[in-house]
Structure formats: structure tokens, C-alpha cells
């Protein structure tokens, strides 16, 4: 039986590690070795907590248990957090039962009770675990910060059992979204600059930032229910200043200005709306059925508008290239 030692104290290195993880630096590198850990000086009567082998999951758990002695059983979730791993099945019944056996947990403790994070429940079937390992599963609160109160009171309040998606939860997602999208931001902006100049480049950056940064922040306050329609509204508002700029500043006939403005209305809000639709995967509340309905309803609109905008841009370029006076 191998038991590793850990503590509730997070080091500067741990915090730096969390910060880098939020920025998507070496995305898959935040792993803890799976297995059984002793927190403080546990006895055979101490509680057993189950966690994922993602450093952020493991670290928030041990930090929340400050001043307590216990065991932490770390499952091999391939460096993925509890909730996402549960939906993939890696934080699951199979892995939990296997890990209980491999670590010989039954020899380390007298009791037969495991405390799991509530969000692990979409991967772990409590009655199956009981049947196969003899250990009872108790689902604790959603957040590790509520663990001390949960342990003291012996039960979770309604609030502890509800997942939240507040400003802070939405905010921490932004860096990694930006980093992942950086190649597209650079390529799109460069292309827009070559085709339409500085205003086009600025409008491109604005619509991308609207989708990647403003949308997550403003999500609950944007009108309408669907993510795509919220994205269209936000993208429309974001592109408005550029429409005024182009109508006021560019030379040429009224119809060429109108055509140029039209390409912007077709292209940019669709980009923001597409990014907004993709944010569904980052939220804590969208259902598969709801997202599928939205894909069928809005993707044709986005593709149609975006495609029409591109075609119109090419046509306008051709007219200019052929020496058309516009």
C-alpha cells in the first residue's frame, strides 16, 4: 500500500500553476499522480475524499480541508476537472472501483464511506460503487469551499447543491478562450486589413473581442434567450460605430458606400454570433437538446449571411479592380 503525503497549504508555485492553466499554457500539463494521499495525519477513522488528477481540482480540495486530517483518493481523469471528466466517464464508477482496489483503501480505513464532489455524480453511480466495492458514496457540495460547513452540519444546503455561473465563473474562462482563438484573430484581422484596410481590420478585432470577451461577461444581461440571437445583438451593436465611420469617411457613390456597409452588417455580427453559440460548451447550464435546436435554427442563418457578405465583398473588389468608377 502506497500513501503519498500532501498538505492544505498551497505554495506560490501552486498559484502560479493555476494562473498558467487559466491562460492555457501547456494545457494538458496540470496533473497530479493518481492514488491515495494522506492529508495531515489521518487515522483509520478519518474521512476519505475523492478528487480528479487535475491540479486545480486537487488543490482547491486540499486547501478547503485546511486544519483537517483525512485521505484524498485521486482518480486518473487524464488531467481533466471533475465535472468534465464525469461527463467523459473518466471520473466514473469504473475508475473509482478500480482505484479503491489498487490503493487497498479498505486496509487504510476502518469505515466504508467516500465523500465525492456532487458534480462527479454524472459519472459515478453510487449504488453501483456500493455493490462492487462495499464503499458507500456520499455526494458533498458542488464547491469545495462549502466542504467544512457540509462536514460540520452533516448535510448540504440547497444553495450548496446548486451550480452557479456568476461573473467570476464567466470571467476566468476568458483568457483561455482568447489564447485558443489567437491564430484566428491574427489571421482574420490580417486578411481584413489586406482586403478592406484599417477600418475592416478594426471591425474584425472588435467583433471577435465582442464574442470572446464581452459575450461571456454580458451573457445574463443580453436580451433574448438563445446564445446566437444574443450574439447577433451584441455583434450588431459592436459593428455600429464602424458603419458610421465608413459612411462618413469613405469617398465614392452612395451605392458603393451602402454596399460596403451591407457587407459589414452581413459578416461581422455573424462572426460574433458564432462565437456566442460556441460559448454554450463553457457554460454550466446548456442542454444537448437545447444546443442542437439552436444549431439547426441559427447555423444556416450565420452561414448564409457570412457567405453573402464575402461574395458581396469579392464583387465590390472585382468592380474596383476592373476600373469601375464607384
Amino acid at each position, binding site marked *: 500500500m502506497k500513501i503519498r503525503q500532501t498538505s492544505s497549504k498551497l505554495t506560490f508555485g501552486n498559484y502560479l500553476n493555476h494562473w498558467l492553466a487559466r491562460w492555457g499554457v501547456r494545457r*494538458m500539463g496540470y496533473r497530479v499522480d493518481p492514488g491515495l494521499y494522506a492529508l495531515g495525519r489521518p487515522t483509520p477513522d478519518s474521512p476519505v475524499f475523492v478528487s480528479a488528477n487535475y491540479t486545480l481540482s486537487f488543490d482547491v480540495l486540499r486547501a478547503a480541508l485546511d486544519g483537517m486530517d483525512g485521505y484524498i483518493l485521486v482518480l486518473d481523469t487524464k488531467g481533466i476537472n471533475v465535472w468534465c471528466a464525469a461527463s467523459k466517464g473518466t471520473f466514473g464508477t469504473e475508475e473509482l472501483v478500480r482505484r479503491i482496489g489498487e490503493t487497498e483503501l479498505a486496509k487504510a480505513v476502518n469505515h466504508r464511506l467516500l465523500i465525492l464532489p456532487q458534480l462527479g455524480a454524472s459519472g459515478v453511480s453510487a449504488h453501483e460503487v456500493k455493490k462492487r466495492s462495499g464503499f458507500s458514496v456520499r*455526494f458533498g457540495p458542488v464547491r469545495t469551499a462549502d466542504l467544512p460547513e457540509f462536514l460540520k452540519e452533516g448535510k448540504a444546503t440547497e444553495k450548496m447543491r446548486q451550480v452557479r455561473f456568476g461573473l467570476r465563473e464567466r470571467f476566468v474562462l476568458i483568457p483561455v478562450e482568447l489564447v485558443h482563438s489567437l491564430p484566428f484573430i491574427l489571421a482574420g484581422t490580417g486578411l481584413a486589413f489586406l482586403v478592406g484596410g484599417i477600418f475592416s481590420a478594426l471591425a474584425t478585432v472588435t467583433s471577435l473581442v465582442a464574442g470572446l470577451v464581452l459575450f461571456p461577461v454580458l451573457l445574463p444581461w443580453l436580451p433574448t434567450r438563445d446564445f446566437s440571437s444574443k450574439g447577433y445583438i451584441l455583434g450588431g451593436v459592436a459593428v455600429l460605430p464602424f458603419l458610421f465611420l465608413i459612411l462618413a469617411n469613405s469617398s465614392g457613390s452612395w451605392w458603393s458606400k451602402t454596399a460596403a456597409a451591407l457587407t459589414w452588417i452581413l459578416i461581422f455580427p455573424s462572426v460574433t454570433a458564432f462565437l456566442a453559440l460556441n460559448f454554450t460548451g463553457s457554460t454550466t447550464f446548456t442542454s444537448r437538446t437545447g444546443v442542437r435546436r439552436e444549431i439547426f435554427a441559427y447555423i444556416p442563418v450565420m452561414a448564409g449571411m457570412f457567405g453573402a457578405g464575402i461574395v458581396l465583398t469579392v464583387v465590390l473588389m472585382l468592380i474596383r479592380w476592373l476600373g469601375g468608377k464607384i
Partner: protein
Amino acid sequence: MKNREAINTLRYNPELCNGCRMCTYVCPHRVFWMNGRKAEIVRYEACMECGACQLNCQPGAIAVESGVGCAAAMMWAALTGKKESCLCS
């Protein structure tokens, strides 16, 4: 409630409920509530189809087609013909 199919795939048969309360513990959106000795759906529209209730309902009173509500995953699956799965790994 009318036209439930349009919202989500959660189905519940109260006759099979044994009153164990597990669904009221595991649901992250408080869809279930204990009404006496039986669970009851109180926030049907909040279901995100995570599947935790079905997995932890021993008598099998709950059924839901669980999956990830992620547009990127679904579109990628449709484009590549692969199984729908979270891409963020």
C-alpha cells in the same frame, strides 16, 4: 406542460420512485424535489441533461439522453462523423 420534447429529454416515472432522495442530491440545477416520500420534478426547464440523476436512480425511475450541451462538440462531430465528445482536453 405542453410540448416537452422541444425542451429536453428528461423523463420520470414516479411509480418507480423508492424515495431514496439521490436525485435531489445530485442534480446541479435543483430539478427534483421531495414531495413526501416521492421525488417530484419542480424545475423541468432547468435540466441540462447531465445524466447524474439517471445514473444514481437505483430503481430506474429516471431516463434522460445525457450529453454535453456544447455547440463546438456537436458541430465537430457532425463535420467529422466522429462521436460527440468534449473537445476541451
